[in-house]
């Protein structure tokens, strides 16, 4: 479904990613792991069109995304839950969700999708008239995920789901995402290696802008190097 082959990405004149190649198949859940500054968010910026790669290609359902603007990529069915959630703080919860449905693919069935999202995150239903800025961090994360789902995406990109959230809430949101598994393909970018491995099928490990390992998540979890480097065991 998503096929990234050998991309080099720069921020200004500084190269951040070197020859990254990643594949995500239909219905799969894949994690990209790495510590702070490894280039995880930059990778997502490249896929979403915010930071086009200088070399290499990104194919989504066989179509090249390189050179497309972020709003065009969104129309194709790629949705992103950005790092730090970035809900529209002064707009209500309902308006935030409506913004998510702005792409043509979401607008047609706005009402139905919104009911569906409220079903997945019942806490949002009770707060739909509240400004998003008044929600707690966990609720804002649920809203950010809900907003992404509103465009009825085929591929969901999630950046640092656990950032700034209590472990219990992180766990709860991960579990909710597990239940979405068959509807949607998810690419997860995470610093919280343990949670991410537990809730993904395959994983790639990114270190200082280069891919160093990849494999089945449950096997990586048992790997001594990874346990030592990332899980503190």
């Amino acid at each position, binding site marked *: 479904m998503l096929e990234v082959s050998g991309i080099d990405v720069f921020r200004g004149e500084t190269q951040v990613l070197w020859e990254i190649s990643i594949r995500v198949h239909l219905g799969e859940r894949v994690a990209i792991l790495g510590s702070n500054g490894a280039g995880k968010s930059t990778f997502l910026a490249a896929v*979403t069109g*915010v930071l086009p790669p200088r070399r290499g290609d990104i194919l989504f359902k066989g179509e090249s995304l390189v050179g497309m*603007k*972020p*709003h065009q990529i*969104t*129309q194709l069915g790629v949705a*992103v839950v*950005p790092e730090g959630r*970035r809900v*529209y*703080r*002064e*707009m209500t919860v309902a*308006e935030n969700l*409506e*913004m*998510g449905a*702005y*792409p043509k693919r*979401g607008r047609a069935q706005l009402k139905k999708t919104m009911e569906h999202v409220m079903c997945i995150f019942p806490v949002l239903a009770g707060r739909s008239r509240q400004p998003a800025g008044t929600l707690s961090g966990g609720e804002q994360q649920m809203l950010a995920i809900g*907003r992404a789902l509103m*465009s009825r995406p085929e591929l969901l990109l999630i950046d640092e789901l656990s950032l700034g959230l209590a472990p219990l809430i992180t766990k709860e949101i991960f579990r909710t995402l597990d239940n979405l598994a068959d509807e949607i393909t998810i690419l997860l970018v995470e610093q919280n290696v343990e949670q991410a491995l537990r809730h993904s099928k395959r994983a790639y490990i990114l270190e200082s802008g280069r891919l160093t390992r990849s494999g089945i998540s449950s096997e990586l979890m048992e790997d001594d190097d990874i346990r030592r480097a990332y899980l503190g065991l």
Partner: protein
Amino acid sequence: MLALATMNGLVIGAIYALAALGVSLVVGIMNVINFAHGELYILAGYFSYILADTLGMHFVLAMVLAVALVFLFGIFVEYTLIRPTYGNDMYSLILTFILSIVLQNAYLLIFGPYPNKPPGWVGGATHVFGAFYYGNQRLAALVAGAVVIAFVFVLVKKTWFGRIIRATSQDREMAELNGVNTTRLNMLSFGLGCALAAAAGVILAPVFPVTPTAGVPVALTAFVVVVLGGMGSLWGCVVGGLILGLVENLGAAYISTGYKHVFNFIILILVLLVRPAGLFGRREA
């Protein structure tokens, strides 16, 4: 005298609010300050003068057409002057400043320094509150201003266009990720900002005739209103506009007409001392 000055203040205040809404919209979405805002206000006055007076169109048609022409002119300005400057706010500041000087001199060349006035909509006067007679034309201007302001509120609060405007002014990159074509939105909102200046112009021109430089004080006051009301707040524009309109006219009536514009800045300084973000401004802004 009090009632008369208050009425005058309301009429002017509504126009200030309208002009300020245009400034606020463009600043909020594009972070561009359009120094030619006042000249677009005047441009619409001249258009409605030419269309209604010289070409003999019905005044309503002339006004709508004048606003539409300024909207298109705004889109043209965005496309040719503003778009290449994205990423450097200083360039657009300088370019719109130059544009304002060019337009002023163009008006001077074409129309001369004389005041021009499109025909009034209504004649006569109404006995208001049993207290004094007030020109019907000014009352009509007040109503028209209020209608356009209400239209802007509905547009921003209730429609898809308003939703993407608000989302984009809060988080531009996120809006883009939500599928908003921000380049096109910039063009439309700049045009709309100009159209609001134009609406203020065509409504007020029959009361205060247009001259090549008559837009300068209006634009200046509009900037003051935006800061006074708080950046990015619609209500701030309306309340701020009315406050300045009232202060200006009451001050002129009771203290001195010579200090008309000084009162505005005194109010601005006082408000900013107490509320640095403006009356309705966000704290962090």
